[in-house]
Each structure stands twice: as C-alpha cells, then as structure tokens.
C-alpha cells in the first residue's frame, strides 16, 4: 500500500516545462535543451538514442556544474507547478539532464522511455546518476522506478546517495517502510542531516524509532557521538506505510 497522499504526492502536471523554463533562463544555457531535443529526434521521429546520450553526457561540459541559484520568483513559480521541494542543491548540468530526460518521457511511449532511463542510469557516471535520481519525482508513473531508487540508496558514493535521500520527495512517496527505514539509518550513519529527508515526519514509525534508539545505544557504547538531530525520528508518530509490492 502506498503512503497516503499529501502535497508532495501530487506529480507535477507541467511535465518538462517548468525545468525547461528554469534552464533556458540560465546564462549560456538558452538554446541547449531545444537543440538536444531536436537532434535526438524527440520532436520528429525517429528517436536517435546515441544523440540523446551524447547530449545527456556532455551536459556538464556545455552547461557547467555551477549551482542553479534560483531567484525568489522562480521558487514561487515552481511551487505553483507543485514542485515544492528545494532544487537548490542541483547543478545546472543536472537541471539540463533532468529536463532532457523529462522531454524524452513526454515524447516516447511509456515502455521505451522506461528502458531509456534504465540504460541511462546503468551507463552513468556519478553526476548523471544524480540527475536521473532527482528526476524521479517528476516522471509520469514514477513508481515504476522504485527498485532503481531503492538500489541507489545502496551507493557508496555520498553524492549519489544524497540525490535520492535528500531534497527528494520520491522515497517518502514510494518506498515501503523497510527501505525507507534503511535510508534514514544510512543518512544518520553518513552524517546527513535528517531535516533534508523530504516527508520524514509522516513516515516515522515505532519501528524506525526503535532502530534509531538502538543506533544511539550502539554509538554511546562505542564512545561515539549520537547525531544531534536523532530526535526527529525518535517519536514514531507518523502514519508509516505498508510493505513493498
């Protein structure tokens, strides 16, 4: 059973448009998305996957890796499009890659689009993986990628882990309790501030509180510090959810 809906459960309706608008407003990024979409055949078939991959992969060299640096007006506009979680940690390259991936989902049938995403992720470097993971909450029927998202939590590359665990509504929206709990524990273990986990408050359970209590005891027994924000999970007062499908 999926978690009960709330604001972050509403998949943004605008598809690729909000991200495309943000990207186009970035210095030096103006024509990039339009060119990439056209060259990959996403406007007029046939779809050219190698061209898509080239644009997706070279985005950092073409757009840079600087922070997206949103203006207040842009933040408000995103909120109106139901993107109510922070995009401030994204790089311009990640914004470009996410926007391009969303365009592919707009143009391709669901099955080929899903297969494209899987190949994109399998052959990705760290920053490309981050972009794919940040795109998940924006995709139509994103829960198809639950297994990929759960697997991403097993990454030992901190930035990849953070791309799914932090400032991303997907886990709270889609993960079953067991996966969500593991993600929260790994966040504590890796020094990630728990306030960065979107929707944590409504996914707290007695079981998660029990795990956090055990973790705190283990840290104390080893003479190590307990994360200062552990209180955020010690009270198991959220609604929780069911088991993984």
């Amino acid at each position, binding site marked *: 059973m999926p978690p009960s809906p709330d604001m972050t459960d509403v998949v943004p309706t605008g598809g690729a448009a909000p991200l495309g608008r943000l990207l186009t407003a970035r210095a030096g990024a103006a024509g990039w998305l339009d060119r990439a979409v056209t060259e990959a055949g996403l406007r007029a078939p046939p779809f050219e996957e190698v061209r898509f991959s*080239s644009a997706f992969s070279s985005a950092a060299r073409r757009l840079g890796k600087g922070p997206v640096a949103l203006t207040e007006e842009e933040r408000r506009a995103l909120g109106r499009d139901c993107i109510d979680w922070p995009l401030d940690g994204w790089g311009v390259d990640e914004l470009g890659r996410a926007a391009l991936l969303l365009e592919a989902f707009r143009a391709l049938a669901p099955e080929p689009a899903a297969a494209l995403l899987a190949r994109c992720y399998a052959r990705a470097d760290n920053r490309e993986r981050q972009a794919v993971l940040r795109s998940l909450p924006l995709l139509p029927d994103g829960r198809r990628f639950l297994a990929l998202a759960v697997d991403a939590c097993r990454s030992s590359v901190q930035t990849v882990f953070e791309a799914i665990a932090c400032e991303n509504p997907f886990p709270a929206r889609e993960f079953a309790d067991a996966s969500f709990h593991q993600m929260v524990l790994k966040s504590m273990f890796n020094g990630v501030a728990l306030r960065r986990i979107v929707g944590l408050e409504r996914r707290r359970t007695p079981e998660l509180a029990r795990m956090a209590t055990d973790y705190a005891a283990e840290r104390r027994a080893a003479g190590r510090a307990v994360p200062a924000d552990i209180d955020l999970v010690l009270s198991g007062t959220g609604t929780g959810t069911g088991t993984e499908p």
Partner: protein
Amino acid sequence: MKLFDPHIHMTSRTTDDYKAMAAAGIRAIIEPAFWLGQPRTHVGTFEDYFAALLGWERFRASQFGITHLCTIGLNPKEANDPHLAAGVLEMMPRYLEKDGVVAVGEIGFDDQTPAEEKAFAAQLELARRFELPVLVHTPHRDKKRGTERTIALVREQRFPEERVLVDHNNEETLPVTLASGCWAGHSIYPDTKMDEARMVALVKKYGVERMIINSAADWGVSDPLKVPKTVAEMRKAGIRERDIETLVWDNPIAFFGQTGRIAPADFADAHYDQSQLFEGNSVLRGQAPERR
C-alpha cells in the same frame, strides 16, 4: 611540485596507495580502461567496469585529493574475442562524451592479430568522431615491430599523429616513436618495461619534448610511486627542475588537453577534504576525516 601519473589502474590498488601517492605529491591521475588480468566473457561486464572507472573510482580518488580521469576503450587482448569486441565497440559512443573521459584507450596491439588491428582502426575512428586523443598500448612481445605497425596504422587511417600517445616505450622503440609526430610514454616498472635509471638516461639523451612517464601500476607487481621515485632520480642526476615539471605535469595536461577536455586551470587547486564524505561504506571506516 605537483605530479601527474597519466597511466595507473587504481581499481586494483588500495587506499594505502592513494594515501602514499597523495603524500608524494601526486594530484592527478588517468586510469586507462584495460583488461583485468583475466579475460572477461560478457559485454555487460564492461558496462560495470566503465561505470566503476567513471563513478566509484573517481569518488575514491577525490577523498585523497586526487583528480581521477579515465580513458575508455577496448584493449587489444580482449579485442581477440569477436563477440566481446563487437559489443564493446557498439557501446563505446555512449561513454566518450562523459566528463573526465580524456582519451580513447588503451588500444593497440598485443599479439598483433588481424582482430586487434580491426579494433584498433575502429577506435581511431571513434577518437576522430568524438575529438579525443588516443592512448596506445605497445606489445610486450615483438615490441619494436608492434610500435612500427602502430605508427603505420595511425598514418594509414590519417589520424593526427600529435593526438597519439604511444606507451611503454624502451630504448629500442623510443627513436621510432619520436621520429613520428606521436608522443612517447614510458612505464616505470619494478622489473620489466623501464626503470628509473634508464629513464634518466633517456631524458638526458632525448630531452622532455613529447615525453611522458607513468607507473602503469595495476594488479601485478608494480609500484604506484614510480613517478615520484623517478623524479627523485632525475633530481639526483642534475636534470633541471623546469624540465622535470614539464615531464611530470605540463606534458600530460598538454597531451590529454589537446581537444579541450582538460585544461591547466582544472588542476589549479587540488583540494582535499574527507569530511564531506565519511563513514558508511565510504573509504573511511570511522576515522576522523582529514583536511588539507
């Protein structure tokens, strides 16, 4: 002096090696895609191997303040497996635009078979299409002939010679390589290939123009500190600091930066901070993060 080791297979090395390399002044490395000591039998294994070069290994190196770049290619040994070769060549275009991919390599000859030549030529074409230099492995057996065939093939394909790094040179092959427009790499090894004293003699005789040294350290008996050790020997032998710096820093950046994938400014501030990334399954296991 900042050092660059432009040929080292870090997936086979430990964090102790990374620590020692950083302490010895190594700030940047290139990990060429090669074979792993035994043949792979599935195309998919390469997918995971390339992902490790582009992802996990880059992250591991960054925790020791070392910039990790890589080359992507089908090595000559595995080019002899027709099923594997076709699959890997077909997959390569998806990797050649990626960040930190600075060349096609290692390609070239091993047994000097027709299959190796075919894969070599196909990858020169990929390098041309994606505007990349190439890193060429030269064979252990029949080495001089293999080096000559390498240069002949580059010319036949009309690939720009200045974008070719012919690696693992020795006293016999170096004149052949330098007589072409190609750059000359030297792998300093504990027993085979080239050692520090011989390298000093080669630098004295040929200078440092188009010359590069590396450790080529891998899963065999090899030494990831051979670049700093050779620098020490060059100093003892009275080779000028400026020439040493050209050899172990400026030249690799100039060669691999020819088509704009890297530039000197990329390496201006090699910083080092493990604190961003600690514990869990990362390379630190509960130690205090170091900063420098």
